[in-house]
């Protein structure tokens, strides 16, 4: 058996892959959080619940309407995105004039309400969601066995991350978004409907979380609390990357996923806390985060 640093190469590559998959979810989720925080200045604690909603909507669409995975990949984020937009318009938008803490408390309460409701309706046990037949099975890469679905998750999340980045950095809509992030009042004075832009942004962030939720359903099962544990890690990712930095959120998501995977190989005991240790170190050295602007 080939060894690297006294570790079997299969174990190393296996954990790297797991790290990359976790990193894909970290990146998708922290991307949505960063977009929302950048423009709305709201720390969206409901992000984990929106991720869970994506998975649940996919499951319910399948159970009640026979809508398959591929359609759910579009429909579930659309539904969660619209719900998010309605929540922003009717509730969250009333809080912008108050201290940022109110937005945080509101979204935290929203998360508890959504998760509590789903736990009441469906119990806390996970429900299986099967891998679509096109992506079932695996392939032998020679050094390891790669389940096709997991490879798909890495590829599609990378595509969605880059697509979102392009939307923000290279389009007209994205230029409104970036400008409003810097100075919303002036952009509004130029004649851009910033309140509508805020609604769309929150909807987009929620839809990204739901998209991650649909991707996660066949891997982690669908349960009301699936977002709760994940979201804490994702907040750490956002802090490390730098609040509001889009590219920072993406790169840091993958990096920390991989760091976590490697820790599982070299020092498994630390794997659950390594992200938080990195966060503490980054906060000490660069309080604005690795990609933050006002360092």
């Amino acid at each position: 058996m080939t060894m690297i640093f006294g570790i079997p190469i299969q174990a190393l590559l296996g954990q790297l892959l797991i790290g990359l998959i976790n990193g894909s979810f970290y990146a998708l989720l922290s991307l949505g959080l960063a977009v929302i925080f950048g423009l709305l200045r709201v720390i969206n604690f409901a992000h984990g619940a929106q991720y869970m909603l994506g998975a649940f909507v996919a499951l319910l669409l399948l159970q009640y309407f026979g809508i398959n995975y591929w359609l759910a990949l579009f429909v579930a984020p659309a539904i969660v995105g619209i719900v998010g937009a309605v929540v922003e318009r009717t509730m969250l938008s009333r809080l912008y004039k108050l201290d940022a803490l109110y937005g945080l408390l509101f979204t935290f309460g929203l998360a508890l309400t959504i998760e509590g409701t789903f736990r009441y309706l469906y119990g806390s046990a996970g429900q299986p969601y099967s891998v679509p037949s096109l992506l079932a099975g695996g392939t032998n890469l020679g050094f390891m066995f790669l389940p096709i679905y997991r490879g798909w998750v890495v590829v599609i999340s990378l595509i969605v991350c880059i697509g979102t980045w392009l939307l923000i950095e290279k389009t007209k809509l994205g230029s409104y978004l970036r400008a409003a992030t810097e100075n919303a009042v002036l952009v509004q004075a130029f004649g851009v409907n910033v309140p509508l832009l805020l609604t769309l942004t929150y909807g987009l962030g929620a839809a990204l979380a739901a998209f991650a939720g649909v991707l996660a359903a066949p891997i982690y099962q669908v349960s009301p609390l699936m977002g709760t544990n994940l979201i804490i890690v994702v907040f750490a990712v956002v802090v490390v990357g730098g609040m509001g930095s889009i590219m920072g959120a993406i790169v840091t998501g993958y990096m920390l996923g991989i760091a976590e995977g490697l820790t599982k190989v070299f020092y498994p005991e630390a794997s659950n806390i390594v992200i938080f240790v990195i966060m503490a170190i980054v906060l000490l050295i660069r309080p604005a985060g690795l990609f933050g602007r006002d360092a």
Partner: protein
Amino acid sequence: MTPLLQVSGLNAWYGESHVLQGVDMTIEEGEMITILGRNGVGKTTTLRTIMGILRERKGQITFDGKDMMNVPLHRTAHVGIGFVPEERGIFATLTVEENLMLPPVVAGNGMSLDEIYDLFPNLLERRSSPGTKLSGGEQQMLAIARILRTGVRLLILDEPTEGLAPVIVQRIGQVLKTLKERGMTVLLVEQNFRFASRVADRFYLMDHGQMVADFPVAQLPERMDTLHKVLGV
């Protein structure tokens, strides 16, 4: 003929502080107006209140016969008023050209991109640089240029020459004259009295949140005593 902009009995507050205390002013189409006054008398506040940025306000603002008091901020530009803030408001995360293209076009009579690059050749050269990498003078040109694209009828400028070298100030003066020839109406706050006296048609003199005098540029010599008293220059 009704004036393009009519402001009467305008009051505005920053929290507890009552900044505008009954501002009255009128601007005819095609005029270039300068508001003079010491620091802190409410000049910038007047501009921000007319624009609708400051919403704690009472009184009347009509633009082209339309009541502006209930127009939301993001509709003000569409009615035909463009704003160049004192801090210029160039976006660091946008390129020069993105900054230029940012404000939506609200009427067909705005300048085309080519015309703007003719008027401001520096912006063409630097169009892919981040907006805030430009010099102060270039940033001011960009701040004015991006409003010219939109086709607004009234241009509101807050201290366009502040902190700029004399040669740039002269250049901005030329730009304002070009705009005037095109029939643009301009409302300007300016500390640089010499600059203002070269470009303006008419002055408003402001003190303690009110307009205390208004007179055309021709009366400037005989008004110097009042000016000295109110401006403290």
